[in-house]
């Protein structure tokens, strides 16, 4: 009965009579943007992320102090006029350290996600496009990698090669691409059964063009959504690694590192944990709202207009 009711709802959705008044169509992308712009939470998320990114880029010019400027005489001070968010046990300005930490955290978030995006989309598209034995081989590889305890792999990598930011991106990206590959492969497999792909093949459209013009644009929706959800995951992973002491090396900071040191002195100097925690939480919420908004906006089934 549930399924029947759903099917019924699909049927009665308002018929979209062609709009003869305007000759230029609205693409699904334009439609999606329209829907997204009506979603206040998602828009707020987008604004927050943009703001944080801009601040992170401009930090060297904006930051009130240097990230490693210590003033041991100060010690840990609560927020004040000179130090808006207070100072840490070594007397370093917390606001500055959060700003510099954001550079690292956001960079890890974006770059590691980009790594996972590139590997995942390519892997998934190829597996889905060719199907058959190639698909089976590639996806079983993904399954095997899934089964490995990747945290241990990352930790080993860090221990053996030392703590290196680039390595950190690669290691985290290498963990995160698996899910992306599965999502893309599922989408492509579904699309390959669509008649417009058959039509393209039968009209002699070259393979590269089919992949670029017909497949990729149609999988981009779910990919974008999953990307916005991967970034917070990656940032949490970095925080976790830093927490374990395997992430960023002091005196550099990252949000994860700031939090892990903040936790140690939580009872005496609570602001050392609260402020980095707030910023991280705000970022994660923003990305999640944005992701949810994008998912709704890019779903052609959700009501338009």
């Amino acid at each position, binding site marked *: 009965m549930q399924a*029947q009711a759903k*099917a*019924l709802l699909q*049927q*009665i959705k*308002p*018929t*979209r*009579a062609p709009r003869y008044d305007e000759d230029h169509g609205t693409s699904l992308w334009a439609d999606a943007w329209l829907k997204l712009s009506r979603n206040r939470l998602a828009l707020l998320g987008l604004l927050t992320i943009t703001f944080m990114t801009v601040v992170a880029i401009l930090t060297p010019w904006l930051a009130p102090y240097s990230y490693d400027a210590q003033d041991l005489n100060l010690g840990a001070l609560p927020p004040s006029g000179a130090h808006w968010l207070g100072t840490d046990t070594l007397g370093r300005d917390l606001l500055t350290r959060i700003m510099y930490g954001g550079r690292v955290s956001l960079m890890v978030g974006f770059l590691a996600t980009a790594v996972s995006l590139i590997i995942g989309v390519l892997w998934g598209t190829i597996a889905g496009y060719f199907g058959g034995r190639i698909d089976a081989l590639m996806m079983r590889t993904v399954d095997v990698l899934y089964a490995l305890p990747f945290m241990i792999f990352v930790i080993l990598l860090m221990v053996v090669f030392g703590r290196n930011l680039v390595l950190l991106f690669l290691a985290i990206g290498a963990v995160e691409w698996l899910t992306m590959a599965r999502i893309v492969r599922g989408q492509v497999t579904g699309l390959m059964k669509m008649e417009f792909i058959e039509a393209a093949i039968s009209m002699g459209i070259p393979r590269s063009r089919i992949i670029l013009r017909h497949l990729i644009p149609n999988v981009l929706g779910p990919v974008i959504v999953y990307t916005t959800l991967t970034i917070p995951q990656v940032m949490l992973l970095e925080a976790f690694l830093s927490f374990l002491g395997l992430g960023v090396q002091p005196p550099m900071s990252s949000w994860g590192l700031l939090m892990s040191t903040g936790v140690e002195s939580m009872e005496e100097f609570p602001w050392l944990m609260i402020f980095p925690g707030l910023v991280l939480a705000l970022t994660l919420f923003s990305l999640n709202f944005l992701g949810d908004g994008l998912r709704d906006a890019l779903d052609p089934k959700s009501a338009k207009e």
Partner: protein
Amino acid sequence: MLTVEDLKTYFHTRAGIVRAVDGISFEVKAGETLGLVGESGSGKSVSGYSLLGLIPTPPGKIESGTALFGGVDLLKCTASELQSIRGKRIGMIFQDPMTCLNPFVTIGQQLMEPLFIHEKISVSNARIAALEALREVGILDGDRRMAQYPHEFSGGMRQRIMIAIALILKPELLIADEPTTALDVTMQAQILDLIRRLQRERGMAVIFVTHDLGIVAGLADEVMVMYAGKIVERARTRELFYAARHPYTRGLLASIPSNHSGGDLYNIPGLPPDLGKPLAGCAFGPRCSNKKDVCGMGQPTIKAVAPLHYSSCVRIQEGSL
């Protein structure tokens, strides 16, 4: 046995109110088959769903109307009252049996379930009733079949099972919503034959919702044609096919290839209206080749234009067409 008055079912969507069913009235006589014909989006399925309280709410809402069935108003029943009528006194079958059958439960259990819900019956008696129900729909090796799951049956067989489930409590009324649309023609012929036979044997009333005028021609005693949420014409079957009194029905009949050999098919120009927007005058007006000024004035109402023959065409009502 069923009298529906001024049924309105609207859907409140973000785009506005969609008048899916907009004030329809009809009755079903005991033992008769009523064919409900229309194209997609005409409101024919929503009408059937409304009667059984199967409209997803929200966004759907039954705005007004009564549906008297054996002295009970179906539209005012509580969920539990409807529950006891559905299945027991009114059976329903759908287009796609696969979405109605639970894939994880054996056919036998799904057949016996309505018996356990509506009647105090022992397991062994329920089993006998289920076997009998399967035999009636032409499944003879019921003993073996009852232990099987839906995926082990073909599309046609699943539809037979749906019919068996819908009819196991011997309802007085069966609502069939495009039950053969997903089937091949030879399988469709089998299912239609089955429905025809069961109806005759049990003296059951049937509301048969379909887009296929051919099915209605062979099955229905009376036919209603729906367009844009309204009934535009209603008549006894022969009368409707041989003396249609609405331009839409006429156009529909003329666009069927088999009523025609060679040459161009008649086609109704344009598209059905957007039900989310209020209509000025007759909904079919913009596509009608007989449109006159009078058609744009006010919403037409359905009126008798001949004995047992009702049409909502203003020009036919006036006698100018």
